[in-house]
């Protein structure tokens, strides 16, 4: 919390008719940070971004940018610029015209416009392209123009709505690095929207995971991956194995949980005996053995093995039919349909509270039926 919050979103809600698209969303974005809003399709990411940009009004709640309430501010009055997913370049203007647009609207002298446009063209590695028309550019080049156009006014905050989703994988990786470099160099706050968890993990200072209009968890990538706060986060970010059960014993930070296939162990604080929990174990944290070992194990049968280059993925079926994913460096192949004994280090199992909102959803569904 070294730097203060530049963008403060306070308990905003958005309804489209009776459709509750954003629910009680509260989020602080710090100055100079790269914050990613991550969530599946239709969860309200774009809507949230559009409310910050000023294209939509929150049904209730407040948004502050630099401490100023945005409620009465039109998009053209906000120190916020947006990079749209569809680029939305002006087709009748050259690259120069597109990028210069924001400066022209601010009535900056012609000479200065020229200099600033040329500078930013170099920055996005498009030097020499100023005369081209948008129709003469490739997807990646268009995206660079869109980014340059949004950056030229030196906004306090840059909003990016899935800016790379239309690009092919290789170009996307390259642009990810470039965006990150740009953000560091210009020291502008980025709010980046994506549904690609890998992209979010690799680029962000912090990630805000959104689900069904609500924020599930906000944290640095490592925290999000290793300490998911909800079942949704655990399953959405990377792959995981979830066990549901009840806490059967607590001994310091060592917790035992009774699940269908036996008693499993984990390490966590703040749980009490009798609580209903979910336990998440990442596939790469699973240990395995083909012969019984001492201590805690779960027995299953190897059902499938998939070779994906650097790693080998296996699926193990438990007696109750539950499938467990297992991932290890490509090495020895497990005997198909043979027995396997699974275990893990207690610290690799993450206990998750059933969240209030999960209960809330259950109640809501029940009420609706």
């Amino acid at each position: 919390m070294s730097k203060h919050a530049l963008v403060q979103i306070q308990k905003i809600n958005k309804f489209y008719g009776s459709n509750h698209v954003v629910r009680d969303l509260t989020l602080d974005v710090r100055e100079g940070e790269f914050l990613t809003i991550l969530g599946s399709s239709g969860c309200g990411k774009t809507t949230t971004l559009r409310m910050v940009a000023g294209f939509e009004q929150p049904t209730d709640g407040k948004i502050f940018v630099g401490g100023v309430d945005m409620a009465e501010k039109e998009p053209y009055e906000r120190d916020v610029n947006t990079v749209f997913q569809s680029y939305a370049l002006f087709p009748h203007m050259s690259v120069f015209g597109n990028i210069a647009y924001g400066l022209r609207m601010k009535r900056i002298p012609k000479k200065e416009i020229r200099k600033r446009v040329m500078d930013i063209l170099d920055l996005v590695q498009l030097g020499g392209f100023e005369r081209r028309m948008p129709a003469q550019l490739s997807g990646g080049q268009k995206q660079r123009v869109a980014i340059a156009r949004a950056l030229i006014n030196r906004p306090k905050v840059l909003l990016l709505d899935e800016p790379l989703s239309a690009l092919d994988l290789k170009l996307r990786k390259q642009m990810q690095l470039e965006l990150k470099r740009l953000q560091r160099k210009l020291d502008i706050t980025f709010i980046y929207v994506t549904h690609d968890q890998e992209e979010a993990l690799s680029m962000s200072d912090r990630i805000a995971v959104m689900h069904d209009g609500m924020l599930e968890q906000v944290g640095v990538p490592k925290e999000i991956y290793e300490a998911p706060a909800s079942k949704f986060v655990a399953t959405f970010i990377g792959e995981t194995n979830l066990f549901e059960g009840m806490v059967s014993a607590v001994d310091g930070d060592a917790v035992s949980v009774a699940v269908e296939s036996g008693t499993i162990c984990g390490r966590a604080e703040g749980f009490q005996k009798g609580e209903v929990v979910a336990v998440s174990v990442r596939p790469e944290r699973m240990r395995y053995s083909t012969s019984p070992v001492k201590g805690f194990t779960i027995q299953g049968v190897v059902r499938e093995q998939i070779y994906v280059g650097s790693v080998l993925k296996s699926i193990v079926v438990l007696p109750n039919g539950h499938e467990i994913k297992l991932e290890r460096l490509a090495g020895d192949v497990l005997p198909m349909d043979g027995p396997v004994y699974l275990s893990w280090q207690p610290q690799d199992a993450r206990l998750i509270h059933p969240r209030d909102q999960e209960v809330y959803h259950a109640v809501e569904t029940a009420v609706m039926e």
Partner: protein
Amino acid sequence: MSKHKFRASTLPVLATVGPVSLWLAFFVAIPLLYVLVMSFCSIDENYNVVFQFTLANYRNLLDVNYLQIYVQSILIAFFATAFCLVLGYPFAFLISRTFQSRKTILYMMVIIPFWTNSLIRIYGWRTFLGASGWLNRALTALHLIDSPVEFLFNRGATVLGMAYVLFPFMVLPLYTAIEKLDQSQLEVSADLGARGGATFFNVVLPQTVSGVFSGCIMVFIPSLGYFYVADILGGGNSDVIGNLIERQFQSGNNWPLGAALSIILIAVTLLLVKLYQKCGGDMQSLGV
């Protein structure tokens, strides 16, 4: 070999293109040719057409009385076009940017009059604007005027009538052009600091200029020709080129002169369309 080829490939082409070509020949090419030939013919003392080549018809078009009417007609067409554009642009914008159910209603408001006979609708205006029409009666009842005002039988009434009849021809191409405009471009513009006016002149207008052009052509050209509007609302005080042509074929009974005038009007039309194409307009939005 070549005979076989003829049967296999030429026949279906002939069968599909043939009737259309015949249709075009009969109803477009031959009448046009007829008018063209007619415009170079002479008339005898009994006003019968004789096939004797002359340029007199074209020379006669330069008569001072005619020149006055050309100017008047062009002015009427110009104001009708301007009127349509000023009203039609915001209207087309509204149709294309509103939600679906209202869009249908607004669209129908343009299309339904378009489907009903314009002659009848022009007579409707006459009843509305006439000395004992509704407007005068309403104004009298409100004590705004003492005696009926003459709204009809002047150039203003003709401009109004032309604009009214041709309004859909302005709105439809404009609507097509505006509809193509990506909504997010307006947002980008606002995002980059442009207010409504700046967005309009920098982003919206440049990208819909082809719609403006085609709308203007499609209002301007018929405005030169719709003689019945000038007759009914203008009452002989605001003749357009169409009235001149009509008169030659009817009371004047000078067909070659009427034909020459028609040819000139067609030539002007083609010229304007060519100009429109030169400026990058696409023919589709002209309905061609």
